[in-house]
């Protein structure tokens, strides 16, 4: 680690093919990620997109078909799983049922050749850190799901790995506990300064904890960025659709003004859309607009100049806010989200005409 700014993990052009040719499965296709030291990095994607496969390749449980994996600059392809300074928190925890909680946490240290005293000392501290000190002599089956989860975390952290892999560790917990654990996980990560690679298919979970998120789909990387970047500047339709809620409208580029494209929506209303560039007049694409960045006003009541109009179709009450479905004049339906704090915004009747205002910069043109 003489490198001044070593990357904790570099996965380059990783390909994973399961099985032999007639029924081979391509689980990963040319995936490259760089994870900085001390980063909380999340792999996010729907079921079957290859998150676990990538994690297992980093841990050493799966071979890599093509490409390379480097850990702090060192190529670890030929390093067996038990020699990699990487630990995993398994989805079902995989706590050893025949050992006590303390023995579970001390296991990795013992295998590294630490004396029982030293191993137990560190394990006890780890258990205190996850607030389970008093449970050290219990068997894992005598713990609740949330407590087992903490033991699994303590067990994986005890040998001070350079990289901690977590495969959907919170998915077996109930909602309240899951929210509490998000905060706690993030705190522990910041406290210990260990690089975390966290797998989830829950976008909210990814947004709350991660420094950066890699969105995956179908074995391919879609976008890497901070939560804000992937939410506000999605690169493609998949990312826009997968992260949060959005309205997707098909459109055609009318003219180009700098980095922005002017497209038509609804009844030939021009709309200025931010874009990633590389577009030309006449291109078809999809506009993504987040529902919370749209407001409804009474027709003619404001002078902001938008002449996009539609008819209010339906309201759905969601607690903190209300979702409103509006049909544009060309028949496409869009969702609008209004916070319930100010009730004037939902001051429409079903069937009433409304003027639709889209925030400056809220519309993004996605070409693919």
């Amino acid at each position, binding site marked *: 680690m003489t490198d001044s700014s070593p990357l904790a993990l570099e996965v380059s052009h990783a390909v994973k093919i399961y099985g032999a040719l007639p029924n081979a499965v391509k689980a990963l296709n040319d995936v490259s990620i760089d994870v900085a030291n001390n980063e909380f990095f999340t792999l996010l994607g729907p079921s079957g997109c290859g998150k676990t496969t990538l994690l297992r390749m980093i841990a050493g449980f799966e071979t890599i078909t093509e490409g390379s994996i480097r850990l702090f600059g060192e190529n670890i392809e030929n390093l067996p799983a*038990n020699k990699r300074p990487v630990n995993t928190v398994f989805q079902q925890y*995989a706590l*050893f049922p025949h050992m006590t909680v303390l023995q579970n946490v001390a296991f990795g240290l013992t*295998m590294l050749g630490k004396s029982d005293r030293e191993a137990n000392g560190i394990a006890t501290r780890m258990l205190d850190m996850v607030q389970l000190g008093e449970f050290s002599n219990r068997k894992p*089956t005598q713990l609740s799901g949330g407590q087992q989860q903490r033991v699994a975390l303590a067990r994986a952290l005890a040998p001070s790995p350079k990289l901690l892999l977590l495969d959907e560790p919170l998915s077996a917990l109930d909602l309240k506990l899951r929210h509490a654990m998000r905060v706690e996980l993030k705190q522990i990560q910041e406290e210990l300064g260990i690089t975390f690679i966290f797998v989830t298919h829950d976008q909210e979970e990814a947004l709350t904890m991660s420094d950066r998120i890699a969105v995956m789909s179908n074995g391919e990387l879609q976008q890497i960025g901070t939560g804000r970047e992937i939410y506000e500047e999605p690169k493609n339709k998949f990312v826009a659709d997968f992260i949060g809620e959005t309205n997707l409208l098909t459109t055609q580029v009318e003219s180009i003004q700098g980095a922005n494209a002017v497209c038509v929506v609804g009844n030939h209303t021009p709309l200025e859309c931010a874009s990633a560039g590389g577009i030309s007049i006449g291109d078809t694409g999809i506009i993504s607009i987040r529902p919370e960045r749209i407001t409804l006003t009474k027709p003619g009541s404001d002078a902001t100049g938008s002449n996009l109009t539609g008819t209010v179709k339906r309201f759905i009450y969601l607690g903190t806010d209300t979702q409103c479905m509006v049909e544009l004049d060309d028949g496409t339906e869009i969702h609008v989200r209004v916070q319930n704090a100010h009730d004037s915004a939902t001051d429409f009747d079903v069937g009433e005409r409304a003027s639709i205002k889209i925030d400056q910069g809220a519309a993004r043109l996605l070409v693919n």
Partner: protein
Amino acid sequence: MAKNTTDVRRYPGFFSFTILCLFLLYTPLIIVTIYSFNDSKSITTWGGFSFRWYQDIFYGLEAAKFKTAAWNSISIALMAGITATVIATSAAIGMIRGEPFKGKSLSFGLINLPLMVPEIVSAVATLIFFSAIGFTRGYMSILLAHIVFCIPFAYLPIAARLEGIEKSYEEAAIDLYATRWKAFTKVLMPLMAPGILSGFLLAFIISLDDFIITNFVKGAGVETLPTAIFGSVKQGIKPNIMALSTLMLLVSIFFVSLSYLINKLGERTGDKQS
């Protein structure tokens, strides 16, 4: 339990049929057990309760013969049971944890073939095999034959147990820097222990009780308990045989129940986490 009309217990005649089956199965055993306490030389007329035939097995005319036979039976059952268990454990790990290989189901069939083949066929085949290779018949030939036919009995509970153990335990061990061997001894073995123990007990009892194969492959002069009993009975059934049979029955019941209990216990304290 919801009481539905398809419950087999509601079929007409189910109850009486069950009683008939149990009667046929257990009456002989019960009669033998009762008459083993008969204080009479006759095997059919009751002459009062006594332990004289139990005394006779240990101190009577045939005591020496029974003692060597019992020693042979137990030592063979122990060694055959242990060896078969070791082989069955390795086979189970290879079959269940190993990469899929060509002929996997064939191997599975081969391991379990002795369960399907009539025992007399195995017996004749083993005998022919031993004579063909010029293997002297005696203690060793019995032991070898027992090891072979005990393997499937040991394999079944071991494999069943292993199949219920998720792979992630071994992966977790390896992830935590354990070598393959340590992952096996520290994690997989303890988790498999109930299956291994129950496999061993089953193999042990099967070896202890075996008659047909033993009778074929044993040399002259080497007897196990079942063959010794058979030899005795050929000269007429004496009540001491009933006492000996009752003892063997007890031992069998003990080991089979133990095997069952261990399996049950293993299931409860086992790997199933919520």
